[in-house]
């Protein structure tokens, strides 16, 4: 495997450029782990090879008109190390990421123990480097033990490589604690990510409130709880001037507040999970626990509002919210079953449903899955531009398949898409010019 300081020439590729918002046939040259040149010609001529000093040993990849896009930057991947390695390890998550075209996993700190000290972060860095074939950027908890009381050592953790700070689904309930965290983080330029939710209203809820919840007799939360959490967070951002990203929005009711905050110039971005863009409350059907996620799947109107918000740019980021759960934690009555779904490998094919439905263009999808998350974290990836890292995904957006959960790379198989028809296959994934997935 000669993949050292190699040069790769991708020819006859349908180049998806989220920054320019274009897709066109062309070719791309990568060398030394970076993109060096992008050409509008489908094939690179012999003359150009000589002019650019491209060695004869260069790898020539004929993309055959298939898509070549910047690799996905996925904010909010749960790798269950430390604590629950039987659910997912850095190796299996990394393989799943590579198989799904995700070249950067931004990992969640809601492990056991939580990643809330430089020492635990050190462990994550070491394991990630040993085992994962893709880039891993860890996030750290915002408060110690994700308890919402004392802030973590944001400075030390930042030095150790934490790219953002979040307590994940544990909402920092005390507004004073949250305000201080945001203020302190602002001094370091650190990004705070929060899951907006009024935890009083959402306590014990398993599904979204509505006719379906009533029929199924399940404890439910109104989407208004998300709006309340978001409005509170945005008020604190306005008060403190912190850098804030709301992950995992799901309710249309919160969007006006988000729009106002952005128009007022607050340093605010927002994300949505792929499940809330492609599934709705009725998918739960007869208590199917693989569809139990947090926040719960919402009404169809909410889903459509989320898709529209991604199209308009109001919502910046699409994430997998990859959350592995073993069979035992899902084979329970719905209320008792664990939340979350694996999604690293299904993120792109599921997102392509929105493309095939005519709701989002390919550049818009990769703006939300690669360019925007990279920019928000201050990374130079997520784009097809000279100088950017050669993190690339080659895929056929039309190839059909039926998903078999037991063929997933993830150790846990809890996907809501099992047995469903999907359209769009990852052909190859490259990290720093090295092929990590595909033939």
């Amino acid at each position: 495997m000669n993949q050292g300081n190699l040069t790769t020439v991708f020819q006859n590729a349908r180049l998806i450029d989220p920054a320019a918002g274009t897709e066109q046939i062309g070719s791309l040259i990568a060398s030394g782990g970076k993109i060096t040149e992008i050409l509008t010609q489908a094939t690179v001529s012999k003359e150009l090879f000589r002019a650019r000093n491209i060695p004869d040993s260069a790898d020539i990849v004929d993309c055959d008109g298939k898509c070549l896009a910047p690799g996905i930057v996925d904010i909010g991947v749960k790798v269950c190390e430390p604590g629950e390695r039987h659910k997912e390890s850095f190796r299996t998550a990394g393989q799943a990421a590579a198989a799904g075209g995700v070249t950067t996993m931004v990992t969640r700190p809601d492990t056991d123990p939580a990643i809330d000290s430089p020492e635990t972060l050190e462990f994550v860095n070491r394991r990630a480097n040993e085992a994962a074939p893709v880039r891993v950027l860890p996030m750290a908890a915002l408060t110690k033990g994700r308890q919402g009381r004392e802030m973590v050592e944001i400075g030390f953790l930042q030095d150790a490589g934490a790219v953002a700070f979040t307590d994940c689904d544990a909402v920092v309930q005390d507004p004073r604690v949250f305000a201080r965290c945001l203020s302190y983080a602002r001094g370091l330029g650190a990004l705070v990510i929060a899951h907006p939710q009024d935890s009083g209203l959402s306590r014990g809820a398993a599904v979204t409130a509505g006719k379906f919840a009533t029929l199924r007799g399940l404890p439910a939360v109104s989407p208004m709880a998300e709006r309340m959490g978001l409005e509170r967070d945005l008020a604190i951002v306005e008060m403190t001037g912190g850098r804030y990203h709301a992950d995992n929005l799901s309710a249309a009711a919160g969007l006006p507040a988000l729009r106002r905050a952005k128009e007022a110039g607050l340093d605010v971005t927002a994300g949505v999970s792929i499940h809330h863009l492609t599934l709705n409350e009725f998918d739960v059907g007869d208590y199917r626990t693989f569809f139990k996620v947090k926040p719960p799947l919402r009404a169809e109107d909410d889903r459509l509002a989320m898709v529209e918000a991604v199209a308009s740019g109001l919502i910046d980021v699409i994430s997998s919210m990859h959350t592995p759960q073993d069979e035992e934690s899902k084979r329970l009555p719905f209320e008792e079953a664990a939340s979350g779904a694996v999604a690293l490998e299904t993120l792109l094919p599921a997102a392509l449903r929105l493309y095939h439905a005519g709701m989002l263009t390919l550049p818009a999808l990769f703006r939300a899955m690669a360019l925007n998350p990279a920019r928000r974290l201050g990374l130079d990836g997520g784009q097809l531009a000279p100088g950017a890292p050669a993190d690339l995904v080659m895929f056929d957006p039309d190839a059909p398949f039926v998903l078999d959960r037991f063929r997933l790379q993830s150790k846990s198989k809890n996907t809501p898409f099992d047995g469903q028809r999907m359209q769009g296959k990852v052909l190859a994934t490259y990290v720093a010019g090295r092929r990590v997935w595909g033939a």
Partner: protein
Amino acid sequence: MTFRQNHLLGIEHLHPDEIVSLLDLSDSYVDLNRRDHKHTDKLTGLTQINMFFENSTRTQASFELAGKRLGADVMNMAMQASSIKKGETLIDTAMTLNAMHPDLLVVRHPHSGAVNLLAEKVNCAVLNAGDGRHEHPTQALLDALTIRRAKGRLHRLSIAICGDIAHSRVARSNILLLGKMENRIRLIGPPTLMPSEVSELGVEVFDSMQDGLADVDVVMMLRLQRERMDGGFIPSEREYYHRYGLDAEKLRHARDDAIVMHPGPMNRGVEIDGTLADDINRSVIQEQVEMGVAVRMAAMELLCRNRGLIPGDAP
């Protein structure tokens, strides 16, 4: 139209014709149960296991009696006291019982959907004896039989269901059943005890008893589920009784021949006046209990026929 079900998990998936044939068969069991000799051998040799993960006296006794009168071997498992406390999962418990080859499994569980989950994992007929806030199909069927016998029909009646709708599986199953049979359904209760978007289920919602009871044929009271009241749904029981407790004064708004029902156990002086509950001219609460045994006998017989355990086609 035959009764096609392999399990009785809820009213939701029953066809109106299936409900009618089940009630018709139940009528014959009411007659049997009123005789001195109350035994048949229809289910001789078959095994019925009652698994109650939640306390129950009345429903469990009713199912037990129903099985015994049909000649089945009946076993009761008090699941609160069993291995579930030792960390065994619901599915493990179900698989263990399944290995003992029961023919009928009667299950009550505190979580909605738990009975559906269990039914997917076992080989025998499962009867839902109440799961969380989801469904309690035999209760709705026995209520329907009681109404049909008292009113002579089970359609085009105006029926009020009153009280703690939010926590009630009885209410859900009754809304589904009475809706399928084309009755007018009114729900009455404080907004805190109404589930979200319940009006989408084809019912009218009232928050005053006086308005809601106007000219109804049937008044169905629900038990205030004090054990599920974790967050102040009502200010006090005395205010609840004042506004929503059924007494002779409030009942005056209903039709003169309106019947009063309650699934039991009653909180006298909370949702219903004790004297009214005992008034044999208005209250059919004792009949409901009687119908319960008959309906459960009919349901078990039909499920066994559908599974080929006993001869004969379902009606």
